[in-house]
């Protein structure tokens, strides 16, 4: 027994010795590698040297004749101001936190016509319902003056979209691996969104080659607002003698007042509006970039996007060609309904836009940049896009930065875009009520567009000029003019200032 115990002790000692040796070796390796890491830490450059702050602002203005809220006809006048701040903070040598917060404050003539019957301030309305729609100032029968060409003063005329995005990135000591994670929140009066994402980038080949993968998820929710006549019809229990419709004259195509108790009366085609308020988007993005020469490099982007839920916009009206038309307002203007001269008659909608509850989008993009000389750089971009709604598109962009001095650079740009129509698109009064899906949103129609722009940038690498104890690094100013072949024209002026903590 004692012999066996002694043998066991010897075996345990041998095993212990072996493991202690392994442990010692392991610790030595760790210590060595730690020393190496410590050495590399001594020499590695910070990913971001100091806190940077970007103040950005844009003013956007557009006009056109195909408002989707009024079924593909009507004014698309819209203005939008977007103050934004982006703060990038180095947490240590390897980690950067970026906060991007902004608002988009817009006024829109077409959105205002969600309720074209608003009383424009001099309220003669009498809406006693306790819902949260904006029909409380609606004019009663006989006084209505609405038109797709006239801006209403309803609550939907203006809104603020606000968003906050927080992005965190971590780089490895050799800067060949980058991990990112982001979370975001956005809200406007009829829509909220929560987004999450993460990505990984790997650099190879002495940082000549880069591969990245990114995933993004948006969980969005509608707080739907509907065209006022459709909403009111359901509120009135589908009875044209109740609620909003009580005492309201409805006209037929000939301008005659209809008998609301007769056989031929206006009614929406569907008795339900939105039955699923969610709208989720999932995307995977792959990117690859390669340095070609000392003066040129390119990158490829490939995204797969899957969207599910209520993908149409509940504010957008549809008028079918195979159903009789009914109006509210001045009968004499019915014949001029699609003309800007119509300022006082409005056609009652047949339905809201309806689109499939899923969509797969696949865009493939490519950038190629070439350093021509110390004064001139060529920046190009091309994208091919297709989706399962029938839209195919090509986008081409060229920019030619010209350094006119040490501190000033000009940015002339040109962008061409073209797309085919979605399978479900038809113009005003052209969809059929027998279709499952329909839209008159001209953003989904066939068109091409041209965009011309010019920018100027002041930059000071040393950031010598002080602003609020920060150094002024750059100032950007850009203007772009955009024209679409369906008649939509817009312009955007953007301004940006970057300051750094000195």
């Amino acid at each position, binding site marked *: 027994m004692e012999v066996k115990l002694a043998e066991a002790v010897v075996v345990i000692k041998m095993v212990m010795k072996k493991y202690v040796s392994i442990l010692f070796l392991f610790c030595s390796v760790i210590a060595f590698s730690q020393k190496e890491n410590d050495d590399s830490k001594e020499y590695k450059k910070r990913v971001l040297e100091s806190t940077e702050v*970007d103040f*950005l602002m*844009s003013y956007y203005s*557009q006009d056109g004749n195909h408002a989707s809220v009024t079924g593909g006809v009507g004014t698309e006048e819209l203005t*939008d101001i*977007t103050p934004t701040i*982006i703060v990038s903070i180095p947490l240590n040598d390897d980690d950067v936190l970026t906060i991007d917060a902004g608002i*988009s404050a817009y006024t829109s003539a077409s959105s205002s016509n969600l309720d074209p019957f608003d009383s424009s301030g001099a309220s003669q309305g009498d809406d006693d319902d306790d819902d949260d729609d904006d029909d409380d100032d609606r004019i009663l029968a006989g006084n209505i003056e609405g038109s797709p060409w006239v801006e209403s003063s309803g609550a939907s005329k203006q809104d603020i*979209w606000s*968003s906050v995005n927080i992005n965190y990135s971590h780089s490895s000591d050799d800067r060949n691996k980058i991990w990112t994670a982001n979370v975001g929140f*956005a809200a*406007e009066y*009829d*829509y909220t*969104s929560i*987004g999450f994402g993460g990505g990984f980038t790997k650099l190879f080949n*002495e*940082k*000549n080659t880069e591969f990245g993968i990114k995933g993004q998820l*948006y969980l*969005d929710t*509608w707080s739907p607002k509907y065209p006022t006549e459709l909403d009111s019809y359901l509120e009135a229990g589908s009875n044209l003698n109740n609620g909003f419709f009580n005492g309201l004259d409805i006209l037929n195509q000939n301008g005659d007042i209809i008998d609301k108790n007769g056989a031929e009366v206006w009614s929406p085609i569907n008795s339900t509006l939105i039955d699923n308020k969610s709208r989720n*988007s999932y*995307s995977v*993005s792959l990117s690859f970039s*390669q*340095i*070609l020469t*000392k003066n040129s490099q*390119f990158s*490829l*982007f490939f*995204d797969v*996007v899957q*969207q599910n839920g209520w993908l149409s916009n509940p504010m957008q009206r549809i008028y079918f060609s195979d159903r009789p038309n009914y109006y509210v307002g001045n009968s004499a203007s019915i014949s001029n309904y699609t003309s800007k001269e119509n300022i006082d008659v409005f056609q009652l909608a047949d339905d809201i836009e309806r689109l499939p509850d899923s969509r797969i*989008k696949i*865009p493939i*993009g*490519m950038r190629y*940049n070439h*350093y021509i000389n110390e004064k001139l750089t060529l*920046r190009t971009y*091309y*994208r091919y*896009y297709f989706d399962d*709604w029938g*839209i195919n*598109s090509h986008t081409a962009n060229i920019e030619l*930065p010209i350094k006119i001095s040490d501190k000033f650079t000009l940015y002339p740009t040109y962008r061409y*875009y073209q797309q085919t129509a*979605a399978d479900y698109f038809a113009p005003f009064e052209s969809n059929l009520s027998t279709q499952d899906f329909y839209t008159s949103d001209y*953003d989904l129609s066939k068109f091409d567009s041209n*965009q011309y*722009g010019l920018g100027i940038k002041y930059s000071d690498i040393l950031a010598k000029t002080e602003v609020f104890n920060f150094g002024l690094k750059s100032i950007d100013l*850009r203007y772009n003019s*955009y024209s*679409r072949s369906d008649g*939509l024209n*817009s312009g955007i002026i*953007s301004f940006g200032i970057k300051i750094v903590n000195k």
Partner: protein
Amino acid sequence: MKKVLILIVAITTLSSCVVVKEYQKVNINDPDMALTANKIEKFETNFQIYREGASGANGGKTGGGCGCN
């Protein structure tokens, strides 16, 4: 589309034998050579997402986050 893919494969293959050293990257590191859009372009991209059927493949937003595209 086929031509684009051939071009991409050709460029990738041709590029695989070239290595530009760090000290040779002065021009590549010029801010205007960045393979991303400028920050100030986010506003243009934003209105394009609203006014056009296509989006994505530009290193930025692909869809979601707004009642737009």
